[in-house]
């Protein structure tokens, strides 16, 4: 095979060369323009959730084994806006098997489709959390009753109790994350 033939087989035609060069430069320009915009648009997905502080709710001594409704304000940073988001917790304090004091602060958001549950409001289901949207039921400790729409127990607020006995609540999280 002569050198000439070798060249022929690897030849890039003038048209092909121009095509590749123009498409390459054009693609680079388009990508350079579009990439920042796309990254800008998808930023909320990639943002890491900020650590949130806990808010003081009140003295722990006022809560008993019966769930008590507590409304409080949770400060949120929502983009450029900062405001207080109204929250509700159903709080019960009881002793567990080992005799330790335990706090259970349940979120009232139904795990079925997000309606708001209430404690002991439906006459057919006393001593239960009842969701009026699709008759979802949870027991006193927030466990979903089998055969009703919810598929998971109610979320629980993260909590802490300081030396003076003040109860603080944080974010509501699914049970398995607690």
């Amino acid at each position: 095979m002569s050198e000439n033939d070798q060249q022929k087989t690897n030849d890039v035609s003038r048209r092909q060369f121009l095509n590749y060069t123009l498409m390459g430069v054009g693609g680079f320009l388009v990508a350079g323009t579009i990439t920042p915009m796309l990254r800008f648009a998808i930023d909320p997905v990639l943002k890491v959730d900020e650590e949130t502080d806990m808010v003081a709710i009140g003295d722990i001594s006022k809560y008993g084994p019966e769930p008590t409704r507590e409304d409080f304000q949770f400060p949120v940073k929502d983009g450029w806006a900062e405001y207080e988001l109204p929250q509700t917790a159903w709080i019960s304090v009881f002793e567990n098997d080992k005799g330790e004091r335990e706090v259970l602060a349940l979120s009232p958001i139904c795990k079925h489709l997000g309606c708001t549950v209430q404690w002991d409001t439906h006459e057919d289901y006393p001593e239960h959390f009842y969701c009026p949207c699709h008759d979802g039921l949870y027991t006193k400790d927030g466990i979903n009753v089998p055969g009703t729409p919810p598929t998971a127990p109610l979320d629980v607020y993260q909590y802490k109790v300081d030396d003076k006995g003040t109860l603080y609540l944080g974010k509501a999280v699914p049970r398995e994350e607690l």
Partner: protein
Amino acid sequence: MLQKLYDWVDERLDITPMWRDIADHEVPEHVNPAHHFSAFVYCFGGLTFFIVVIQFLSGMFLTMYYVPDIVNAHASVMYLQNEVAFGAIVRGMHHWGASVVIVLMFLHTLRVFFTGAYKKPRELNWVVGVLLFLVILGLGFTGYLLPWDMKAYFATSVGVEIAASIPVIGGLAEDLLTGGTILGAETLTRFFAIHVFFLPAALMALLAAHFIMIRRQGISGPL
């Protein structure tokens, strides 16, 4: 793969002639910078359009975070610029592009003027071009208010004063621009609507007319 996809569509919809109409046409030698470098002056129109496309894109993305409201407008601009990834770049493209588009448009107008390309039979395209100039100036004027900072507020205040100085209808023009008795909440929403809906729609219609006329009449001959 891409070729196959194209062929599949082309076989059914016969898109090749359409593509030819839009993009596949000869560039005369006297406007091709590869032949005469000085022909780069013929690029200004296309470059203006290129920047306009960037303005459309970056503007669309900016509205994902911007709110046209006197309480939140400035805070949302600060947020999208400082807290959102590439915010400074996307806002920067829109900010600098706004100036570049006016410079390029002016150069394009000079080229058309000095090559006499506006003469018969292209008078109507010159008219459309002047309307485009006005629409783009309008976009610059309305967009300037949107960041809702001191510069925006007082620049618009001056602009409104100028409109108010028109004899007879000045007061009417002022009310129409501010949307109320003071330069405030209603002015901002009004300018936003004009900036993102009304003028861009007019711009697209006029650009279409501008380009269809060029294809119909061809590029004017050499000097």
